[in-house]
């Protein structure tokens, strides 16, 4: 029995060493193939100080597809870092900005508001445990500690932290040799043919739970906390609603109620809200039911965002 125990211990020790080796190898691979994950962008950011950081869910991501962020920087002369991530609500975005501010600075924060991200834990607490996000997040002890705080304080599943610490999702990543890009980026140049069925399915996906006022209030509070963190760090915050096709916009559930509730929070914190949601109704500006394609991003930038980014204080 004693001999069996010794052998078992040795077996486990060798196994842990091998695991450590695989862990290091996957981290290196991530640094080579990382792309759209906000924490990867923070870890590999070239500058310490930025003029603008963009936060939000996937509707904000096309502004960083292909070479568009570089183009925006060239045209405005501003340093812009887009940290939006697919399906992420205010809680996850607060996590991102908190980590960003540990080693970086920004003068302005552009928050892309989407009502769906305020209606369910699926877009907030649960996003921490999403293997696709974890596997693109490079390991950093400070980030692990920060995630630990979210587990303790905000009800994030401890398994998300365990996954991050063990590197399991990275080791187990089937797409480990592919660039870690969100699939939407491959469709950036596509033009969408609108379909009522697809829109209905998309809405059902984005709003998995019936809108509960207390749930929305909880995530608006998280949003207010995010704004407070920004203000404590001397960051000016601007909230925007980006264009979406009319067919999509008209089916959004309880949008007016959300707008009213969000306006209250934003007013309390003196944050302006620019509602561009109806600015581009033509479906040719979208690559799917609700994401801007290259033409849409170009049009939105030139007509809507550029003047906003260039306002006094933007630089």
């Amino acid at each position: 029995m004693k001999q069996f125990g010794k052998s078992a211990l040795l077996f486990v020790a060798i196994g842990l060493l091998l695991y450590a080796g695989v862990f290091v190898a996957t981290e290196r691979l991530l640094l080579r193939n990382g792309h759209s994950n906000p924490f990867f962008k923070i870890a590999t950011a070239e500058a310490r100080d930025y003029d603008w950081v963009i936060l939000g869910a996937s509707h904000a991501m096309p502004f960083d597809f292909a070479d568009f962020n570089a183009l925006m920087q060239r045209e405005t002369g501003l340093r812009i870092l887009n940290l939006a991530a697919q399906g992420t609500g205010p809680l996850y975005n607060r996590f991102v900005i908190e980590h960003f501010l540990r080693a970086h600075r920004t003068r302005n924060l552009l928050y892309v508001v989407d009502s769906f991200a305020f209606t369910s834990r699926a877009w907030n607490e649960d996003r921490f445990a999403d293997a696709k996000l974890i596997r693109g997040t490079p390991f950093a002890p400070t980030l692990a500690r920060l995630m630990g705080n979210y587990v303790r304080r905000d009800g994030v599943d401890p398994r998300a932290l365990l996954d991050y610490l063990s590197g399991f999702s990275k080791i187990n990543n089937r797409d480990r040799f592919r660039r870690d890009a969100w699939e939407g980026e491959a469709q950036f140049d596509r033009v969408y043919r609108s379909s009522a069925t697809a829109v209905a399915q998309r809405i059902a996906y984005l709003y998995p739970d019936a809108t509960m006022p207390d749930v929305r209030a909880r995530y608006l509070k998280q949003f207010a906390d995010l704004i407070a963190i920004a203000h404590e760090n001397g960051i000016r915050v601007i909230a925007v609603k980006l264009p979406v096709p009319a067919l999509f916009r008209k089916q959004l559930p309880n949008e007016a109620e959300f707008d009213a509730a969000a306006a209250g929070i934003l007013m309390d914190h003196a944050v302006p809200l620019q509602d561009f949601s109806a600015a581009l109704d033509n479906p040719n500006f979208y690559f799917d039911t609700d994401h801007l394609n290259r033409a849409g991003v170009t049009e939105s930038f030139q007509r809507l965002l550029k003047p906003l980014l260039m306002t006094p204080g933007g630089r």
Partner: protein
Amino acid sequence: MLFTSLDFFVFLPLVLAVFALTPVAQRWAVLLLASYVFYGFSHPFNLIYLGAVTLVVFACGWGLERARQRPLRVAVFVMGLVAVLGSLIAFKFYDFIAGEIEHANLLADFKLPRLGVTAPAGYSFYVFSAASYLIDIYVGRLSGRQSLGQVALFTAYFPKIFAGPIERATNFLPRLLSGLRADPLRFALGLQLIGWGLFKKVVIADNLAPLVDHSFKIVAFAPPIELLISTYFFAFQIYCDFSGYTDIALGISSLFGLDLMENFRRPYLSRSTAEFWGERWHISLGRWFRDYLYISLGGSRAGALRRAINVMVVFLVSGLWHAGLGYGVGWTFLVWGALNGAYQWAGLATRGLWRRIGEALPRVAASAWLRVLRIVITFHLILLSWVFFRAGSMHDALLVLQKIGARLTDLPHLLTIYPFSTEQLTGFGLIAFLVVYEIVDERRPVFQRLADAPVALRWGAYYLGIFALLLFGRWQAKEFIYMQF
């Protein structure tokens, strides 16, 4: 709780620790408590079903033990059997049959009420175990003087509750009474079985699953060659999914010093469909049907015609038992059962002919080539039946066969020009590995070979297996197919 979930990897060591610290005589109670926690973890309401089935068979067993008059014994027995098997039939088929009746407009515009509930996970398995307990008491193979706790553990034992093996109380209960003790060798074997079962499930089955699902989702759009590939993949997906579960179940049970019955014995190396169903595939279910249905119907004792009918009845009932799987309740399962029953008929009809040929040409009969040929033919007969098992409807099943059949002669050419995806090539690689493993295992068990191998080789194999699970496994908690019964 799934065997592949993180929750389970926390749960199992905890149960093992409590088990080890508990006196031998009370260990069964630890397993009973663990089994109820395990089963009720995600859906606590399901414990009501489990508790009800346990109480029914325990009470009927108790009644059978005490009833002296035959009519009373028969009444108690029938009541118990109808209650457990009837509930299974109602859960599985009532809504489907009601729908079919309305669809055929048999009741004019009358709408039949619906149950609106399906059987909870693993129901078919523990109901069959529970029914065997009752039957064994009725025929005198088992005493009805079992304690409620031990009957409850027999029904609920967590390694087997979701997908078997369908244990017999005559085997299970005496092992409980003799005391549960784990030893290092059995423990090590248990861990190996768990590892191999996980490999089959999360590396092989779950990597093949999306490819199969993709083709069978909209059969009309899938090219014939893709359907053919997916049919082959499904044969290995279902084998690795189900036998993977069984291996994990056997392995976990070994950790507690309790051996469960073997359920799979390299089925795709069968040389006949009779061997496949009788000795190698889902052995515990096959024996259940043999002992409690086939023999009860008269088995092979009442003449050739009656035997043929009995065989077909068993396979049709088996088909019905499989209905309600993740692929829906439909006529496909009845056809699947009938087809396999027809294979047995063909086997029985030609048995004499093959024996005479074997006697006339003994060298040919004993040749390796003939053995391989028989294995290949048997595999393809089973493969054909899997189409009905997997397809969502009869229309889909026939369309798959029609599309493959229409291009059968072109297939060699199509294979050379088909742009295989990386996932498909990986699938073929995994299947090739499995086949080689099983051939080696058939000659002498791989676990035995490893036990006799030098430490470096043995440990190297273990590390390879573990890291294959970590690197290539799909751990996103996809349910075991047979759990959906």
